């Protein structure tokens, strides 16, 4: 392994790609938040699973421990090694995304899954982490040239290819995740401010375009799409539901409507553990996956919800601290990218459950049920924990 050392770090003579001793050097703050969040997840999952299947709870606990093992493995691997593999990862993921479009399994109107013999793979899910690595690799390679418009725009091309492929599936939620990720990482990498301003301005200009599409939209009448930029009917319907909550009570927005009732009826301190009526009586669908936060807010009220949001904030800010304090650009970019992905999930998921955004299938880290997303989250935790391992550099410098 030592043969790679010259390539990615010449200053640290003791550097090894795999170093189990890293485990002893783990920063203990972040794992505490992780464990608290995971515990909150189990606690909530037990309540959620009571009304359907208690095995969800046991499996969720198991996922955490499997995930923790993966975290420890990731911690032991030097992130610079993984970043160096980023071009390969990127190529593989693009191929997989193309494969999904060609041979994917269609579930609920979206081609998202690749069926292998033993397991199913959702390349769009994996693409989030891969994109963090790919952009980290690209931005560290480009270095200060990022202030140059060409290199700045090339980053969007790199991010844009998988994004378009994911939009084709279609999977608006994941594609939406890649946009803030790219922007945050470019920002941290030190792009020019006016470049960023123009890009954000262009992004916001989508809103009038959307408005044009939504102006005459009637959710009851399904019209064929006229242009490529136009949204699909079900996507428009979700936006329509979000803009017209009274329509929700009738048909499509049952989720949002019931979720708001669930959260709102919780009050300050909630209805009490295992006493949430909305979830227990199945008024809130998917209350163990995407809408688990509603259950939490119903049973534990405003206090419980804010405590969990606070834990997420602490966790994410701790991650950004690693980014800030990392002596080299690669660690900073990696940590800020990972934090952005996780923050996007936290924010969008909660915003959906409390009716601030239209419904898209975005799970909540540590709380929503689901093995592969739990694994993704724990890999992110491992990557984050690996970043401050390099703090020693400061003294070397």
């Amino acid at each position, binding site marked *: 392994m030592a043969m790679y050392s010259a390539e990615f770090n010449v200053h640290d003579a003791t550097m090894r790609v795999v170093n189990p001793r890293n485990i002893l050097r783990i920063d203990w703050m972040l794992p505490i938040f992780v464990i608290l969040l995971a515990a909150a997840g189990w606690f909530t999952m037990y309540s959620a699973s009571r009304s359907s299947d208690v095995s969800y709870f046991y499996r969720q606990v198991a996922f955490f421990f499997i995930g923790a093992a993966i975290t420890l493995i990731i911690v032991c691997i030097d992130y610079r090694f993984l970043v160096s593999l980023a071009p390969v990862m990127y190529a593989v993921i693009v191929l997989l995304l193309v494969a999904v479009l060609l041979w994917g399994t269609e579930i609920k109107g979206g081609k998202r899954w690749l069926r292998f013999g033993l397991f199913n793979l959702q390349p769009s899910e994996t693409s989030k982490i891969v994109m963090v690595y790919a952009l980290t690799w690209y931005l560290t390679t480009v270095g200060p040239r990022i202030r140059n418009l060409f290199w700045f725009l090339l980053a969007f091309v790199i991010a844009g290819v998988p994004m378009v492929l994911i939009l084709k599936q279609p999977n608006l939620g994941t594609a939406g995740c890649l946009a803030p990720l790219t922007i945050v990482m470019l920002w941290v990498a030190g792009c020019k401010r006016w470049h960023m301003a123009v890009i954000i301005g262009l992004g916001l200009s989508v809103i009038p375009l959307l408005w044009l599409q939504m102006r005459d939209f009637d959710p009851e009448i399904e019209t064929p799409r006229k242009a490529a930029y136009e949204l699909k009917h079900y996507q428009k319907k979700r936006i329509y539901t979000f803009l017209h909550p009274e329509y929700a009570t009738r048909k499509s927005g049952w989720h949002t409507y019931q979720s708001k009732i669930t959260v709102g009826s*919780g009050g300050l301190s909630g209805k009490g553990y295992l006493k949430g009526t909305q979830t227990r009586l199945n008024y809130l669908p998917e209350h163990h996956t995407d809408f688990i936060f509603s259950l939490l807010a119903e049973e534990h009220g405003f206090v419980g919800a804010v405590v969990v949001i606070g834990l997420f904030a602490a966790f994410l800010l701790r991650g*950004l601290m690693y980014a800030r304090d990392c002596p080299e650009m690669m660690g900073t970019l990696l940590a800020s990218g990972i934090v952005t992905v996780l923050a996007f999930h936290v924010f969008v998921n909660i915003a959906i459950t409390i009716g601030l955004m239209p419904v898209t299938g975005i799970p909540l880290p540590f709380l929503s049920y689901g093995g592969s997303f739990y694994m993704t989250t724990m890999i992110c935790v491992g990557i984050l924990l690996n970043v401050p391992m390099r703090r020693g*550099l400061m003294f070397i410098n």
Partner: protein
Amino acid sequence: MPGSKKPLRYEGVELRVQLVALLMTLALSVLCLQLWRLQMVHLAEFRALAEDNRVWPKRLKSERGVIYANDGTVLADNRASADVVLVPGECPKERLPGVCESLERIIEAPADLTLAKIQESAGEPFTQITVKRDVSKSALMRVEEHSYDLPGVFTVVHPQRRYRYGKTAGQVLGYLNEITQEEFDSWDNYSKGDLVGRSGLEGRYEKWLHGRDGYMHVTKYAAGLPQLRTDARGVPYIAERDSLGNTLEEEGMRQEPAAGKPLHLTLDIQLQTYCEEILGNETGAIVVLDGDTGAVLALASMPGYDPNIFVNRDFGAPKRKKKTEPKENAGAPDAQTAPGPEEKETPKPADGQEASNAQAAAGSGGAAPTADSTPRGNDELRELLGLAKPDPSRPNRMIHRGYAGQYPPGSIFKVFLAAAALEEGLITPETTFFCPGHFQIGGKGNSWYCWRHSGHGSVTVVEALAYSCDVFFYNVGLNKLGVERIAKWAHKLGMSEKTGIDLPGEMPGLIPDPEWKRLLNKGKPVWEQNWHPGETVNLSIGQGGATTTPLQNAVLMASILNGGVRVRPYLNQELGPQNSERLFSEATLATVIKGMRLCVEDGPPAPSGTGHVAYTPGMAVLGKTGSAQVVSLKVQKMFKRPEDVPRKYREHAWFVAGVLDRQPKLAICVLVEHGFHGAEAAAPLAKKVIDFYYAKTGSRETMTARQGDTDGDVLR
């Protein structure tokens, strides 16, 4: 380190990361603000919405008030009717076909039909699918026995109206029908699908008999309601806890249903049954009043209907097989024969739920058997409601001829005329008129004949009543009373207006007068508007457009019996008598009574009163016959012999009778449509009623109900 000059990070990256952190914190703060808005500001709204989601008031149907006869016999009550229902959501999917087949085997509910119903409600797995309505006790028990093989199958019980005497007094009790939208909107305390009274007592006392529904507040699942179940004894209950161990019924929120008020009638069910029996296949009515109070003892009209048919309504839905006629199949092929064995239990008034459940145990076995499931109700119901093409040869069965049928009174109107003329002092008991067998106004012009063409000779009012001399009354009507006074007395005695009996749909009848004729022919030539003396002549013997109801004549009879007081007939005991002031003097009454007694008592070989058939030795029976023409004499004369006259051209036979020296004093009016002659068709029926009533009761001093004593000679 000296070797490396390459900066690992550019200046200001820390600031940029901190800005990201700031934005992130702001974003999460927005979430907290929205949470505050939902959970603190709008808490009450969302709490209410959540509560609406959670709690559902499940209706516990109240029972309709029981209707009792004057001796406490139950006429109409409620039996527990059990439906077998299937809740697909409570049955494992793969077992559904098997369960449907089992149900076909056990209760003969076609499996394919059940499966089709399950398919229909596929989106709502927790709805109750009615597999079979109104199942028998034995089927209920078979379902309970197999309950382990029948997941998701339950029996639900609801009270259903039962008329224990079937056709007997059917029109008086009235029928039920589904509540209309307008009624539902404007009436309190009703639910959709409720049955409400449409005619008879059920209609008149709808609000009285209708109970107040109760509610149990149950926890509702998004997918459906927890099911109200029924145990083997027919008692409804709800599973106390669901599979997660949560309580389903809200504690302390239960509101028990309150049964409707019981209705105690003055009706003597035995007499009523007997009256309908003796009318037999005739079309007609018998009205029997207590002469002193106006209490209705019998109000028979034939042909009638069985109100049970309406309760077990199932017309218009051929896919659902008609269940049963609880009453008819209970071993009572003829409504007049004895009710089923369970009727012998002493009815306890107003004991609501428990009694009916107990009756369900006995009743649904005995009174609602599955043996004969021919859908008789369909055709009969269609006919009754006028949905089917009416058969012109069959008389209308919906109309009660006793109070809603209007007929020319014919000769029984002479009682009215005699009493009025006597009371006005226009004639005295000694006044005589000569009857040559015909009558001419002023001695010329058209002739009016007496029914006896040979004439009665010189007759007094007593004789005129006894022998029904037409000429005497032509004279009284035209030359003594005059049409104005007839109209005045008609108003006084309640002719041409409703008697006020507590039944809907009563008809007023009509006694014509000049004013009425003028209004009727308004706009026509004057001679058609003017009243002619000939019309007064016709009116004097109850013809010429005059119509009355049998009930009105019974009321008139009652006032002869009770010393000249007009009574208001009533069926609800709580109404009590409501009498007018005295209308006739003793002397007037004595004369009329004398005439009416002579009508009955003057037997052969003497001239013979027309009502002699009703003669009862040792009893002061009053009577007056009547034969009201429905077509002119010319039509009748087209036929050589009286037997040749087609039925529809024959006279209506009337007989009014009263019993003076017994308690209660019966005031009877018999009408037989197209019965030909009152003396032959109607009078024998009155005689039978008198014999039956006083033989049954002896001479009862009061109308006190003899409870529990009804088995002996009930309905013979």
